[in-house]
């Protein structure tokens, strides 16, 4: 740990935020106010300082003078802490950051994914809800539900979605049955067809039912597969007015 002025690990006076933030004696400072910071005062190369922010302000990234993680500006919230090391001549590089809004023992990802092409980088997390629905031949005329609920969790490029619907009227549309409404479009990968785990109640089928999500799609095709190996689409005639469909699928996006 580098040191300066008042000695190692000593708190300096509070610093009012300013475009050019003056750095006095000490290694730990509370930065007050909300003025955007574009540069920091000069320290010998190797000195480290830690800044705690008492409000929301912007630290402006600069490739030479203020090198921040991710090469982007950083908007602080009260309580955020950042540690920087001097590279001399008024140039600083961030080496650590502790966001006040990140709970202990948690990892927070930005609301907007910063996608990484690296196969070993975790770049996204999101959880939420979706609304499963049903169509026959691509339509759902007169169809109503007594229950529709779905939850999803997205980790990196993998989505886990589970949902359940209960018909209260199957309506008048006819044709192949599809469960619709998945929260993300599946990856557009050649020959990417993902089977889903399925629970049916009040639905007739021969031997065993299947549900498959095709590439670049948000709909599960529902079918029946006989023991003889013949696959046929499930259709409106296989459903009752009170049929239940539950599904779980894990797929890439």
């Amino acid at each position, binding site marked *: 740990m580098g040191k300066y002025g008042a000695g190692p690990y000593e708190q300096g006076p509070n610093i009012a935020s300013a475009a050019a933030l003056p750095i006095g004696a000490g290694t730990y400072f509370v930065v007050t106010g909300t003025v955007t910071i574009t540069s920091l005062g000069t320290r010998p190369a190797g000195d480290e300082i830690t800044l705690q922010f008492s409000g929301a302000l912007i630290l402006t990234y600069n490739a030479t003078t203020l090198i921040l993680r991710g090469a982007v500006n950083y908007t602080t919230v009260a309580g955020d802490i950042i540690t920087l090391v001097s590279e001399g001549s008024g140039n600083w590089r961030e080496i650590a950051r502790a966001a006040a809004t990140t709970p202990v023992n948690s990892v927070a990802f930005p609301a907007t994914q910063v996608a990484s092409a690296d196969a070993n980088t975790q770049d996204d997390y999101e959880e*939420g*809800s979706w*609304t499963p629905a049903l169509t026959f031949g691509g339509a759902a005329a007169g169809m109503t539900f007594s229950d529709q609920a779905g939850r999803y969790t997205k980790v990196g490029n993998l989505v886990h979605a589970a949902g359940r619907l209960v018909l209260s009227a199957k309506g008048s549309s006819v044709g192949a049955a599809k469960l619709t*409404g*998945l*929260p993300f*479009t599946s990856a557009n990968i050649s020959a990417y067809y993902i089977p889903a785990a399925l629970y049916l109640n009040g639905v007739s089928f021969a031997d065993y039912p299947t549900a498959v999500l*095709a590439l670049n*799609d948000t709909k599960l095709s529902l079918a029946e597969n006989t023991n003889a190996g013949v696959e046929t689409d499930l259709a409106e005639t296989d459903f009752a007015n009170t049929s239940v469909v539950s599904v779980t699928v894990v797929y890439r996006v």
Partner: protein
Amino acid sequence: MAITEKSVISKIEVLEDGQIQVQRANLVLRDNVEIAKEYHRHVLEPGQSTVAEDARVQAVASAVWTPAVIAARAAFLAAQS
């Protein structure tokens, strides 16, 4: 102390073939400061009705879903089935 709720379109993502992924954030606020948030997602196919969608989603769909985009997506889905 006032607890309020608000629902906003928090993300509109346009995929290469014109599908639009919509993320809605349902927020719980205490004195206008967010204390809880839940997302809901759905995806729109090119050419699909947007009558029930947020005005911004409608505007994006209107800009993106040209006849060529709609036709290309329909052709892709037809080839899938």
